[in-house]
């Protein structure tokens, strides 16, 4: 899988999307409206209570935006691809992926590269920049580097978890409920971790480590105490992404070897 092939694929994907231009524009517009609604709900909520677990509105906006931005980045390379795998395995079209002289995983995620997430990225990116400006933080350049690493790591956590769920398709074929479970859990990270009980905190830290997506990086950047990760481990947090993504990839490749195909 070369960069040349990837850019060729993206050009074709763009061309393909433009066959259904109106659909593309409308769905991007719908996404922006829907997430703007989410922001407004949190804002109204914060107007009422001023702070949750000590976090004020711009801080919550920062937390939520990192979550959404990294999700969009990670999901553009994984969500449609992995949720569509069920159909491909059931109909046997996954076969055609295994007869190409390219890595099947890399081909699958590039072939399905989803440009529609540009909507999520623009709204969350805008709010993220607004929140940083609003908070008037005295950040050094290391803080900006930390934020950048956290965004990359967060995207990789999302993509890694979605990839791992996708891998189960090869054994169980039906995976819809695992995806809904993922989205249910993702709801939790819209708020600071300390508002939940110990069980949920542990679950989101070591079980399904979504807290590493936005809570831990944001807490360290905003100098909040975290009960589960000591301060000296701050720079280890962005390693969670590559680790989870690597494991997800290995699991997926293992699953592809278990692929049984469809009758034909």
């Amino acid at each position, binding site marked *: 899988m070369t960069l040349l092939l990837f850019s*060729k694929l993206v050009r074709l994907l763009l061309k*393909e999307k433009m066959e259904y231009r109106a659909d593309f524009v409308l769905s991007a517009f719908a996404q922006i409206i829907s997430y703007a609604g989410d922001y407004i709900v949190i804002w109204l909520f914060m107007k009422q209570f001023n702070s949750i677990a000590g976090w004020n509105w711009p801080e919550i906006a920062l937390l939520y935006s990192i979550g959404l931005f990294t999700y969009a980045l990670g999901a553009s390379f994984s969500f449609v691809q992995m949720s569509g795998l069920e159909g491909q395995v059931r109909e046997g079209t996954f076969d055609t992926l295994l*007869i190409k002289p390219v890595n099947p995983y890399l081909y699958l995620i590039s072939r399905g590269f989803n440009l529609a997430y540009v909507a999520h990225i623009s709204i969350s990116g805008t709010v993220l920049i607004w929140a940083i400006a609003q908070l008037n933080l005295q950040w050094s350049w290391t803080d900006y580097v930390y934020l950048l690493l956290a965004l990359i790591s967060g995207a990789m956590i999302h993509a890694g978890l979605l990839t791992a769920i996708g891998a189960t398709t090869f054994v169980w074929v039906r995976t819809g409920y695992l995806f809904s479970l993922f989205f249910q859990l993702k709801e939790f990270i819209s708020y600071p971790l300390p508002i939940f009980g110990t069980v949920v905190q542990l679950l989101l830290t070591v079980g399904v480590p979504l807290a590493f997506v936005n809570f831990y990086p944001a807490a360290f950047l905003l100098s909040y105490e975290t009960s589960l990760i000591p301060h000296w481990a701050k720079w280890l947090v962005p390693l969670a992404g590559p680790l989870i993504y690597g494991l997800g990839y290995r699991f997926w490749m293992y699953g592809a070897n278990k692929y049984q*195909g469809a009758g*034909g």
Partner: protein
Amino acid sequence: MSIIAVNGITKTYRQYRRFPGLIGSVRSLFTRQYTEEDAVNNMSFTINEGEAVGYLGPNGAGKSTMIKMMTGILVPTNGDIKVLGVVPHEARKANAQQIGVVFGQRSQLWWDLPVTDSFDLHKYIYKIPDSAFRKNLELCMSLLSIHEFVQKPVRQLSLGQRMRVEIAMALLHEPKILFLDEPTIGLDVMAKDQIRRFLRTVNRERKVTIVLTTHDMKDIEEICPRMLVVNKGSLVYDGSVEDLRAKLGSERKVIIDFRVDPGLLDIPGITLLQDEGIRKTFLVPRGESTVFEHVSRIASQYPVEDASIESLDIESVIRKLYLQLASEEQPISKIG
């Protein structure tokens, strides 16, 4: 020189038991209950460079499974398989570069884009040099008359046009072996003819080894001098079409036109296949008396206008083989 060597290959499908509902889904995660079924059972054969081999058998005989193992899609449960010197599923990329695969029922084209975009992407995926790409594309496009619709989106093509494109694309990277899984399924007579002629040319002139599965015996007759017949995962015949005919089709079909309808004829040793009044079709086994003797005996008793003798067509031979196989059949699935 053999380029495909299959030795004692078995493929067992394992179906885990699934339970309904959300709780059932969770339960399915932990259960170890499954059923096993052998789709391919201890199969061995070799295919030499330049051969054209038809791979056939009734539905569910394990044809696609075998093709998928040879192309590296599926991992065999047991046995050795070597294609061009490598184990296909272990060296997927190397293997893919050397083979072309066409699925009659699974398109590899970009549905919403013009045909030419799919060709173009293929060039990047297989890293085909410019000059070779242009030469091969031109040859395939003219032999399969693709020029007239190359700028149309794939979704607007007829099935016959699409199939021609799929086959052309599978040959652009100059594969040594071309695997085709039911390439003529659902096509009209003209489209089938064109594809058969093309495949024969590719095999005879460009020396591309062809392995194809089909249910259409004409594909075999026109493209493949050798055929492998499988049933229930086992090889039941390996040889030429003529040999199989000689083995099973020892009967001759005799069509006799009478001047007047002779009514019901009862001639010992031969069976009436079809009765259309003055035209009757008989099945005559080759035994003590020759076909000619039978015909002249009838002609001496009844006024005969015309008579013609035909050997059984390959369809009937295969039908007979399948019927024979079905009567010997035993289920081989077991609960694990």
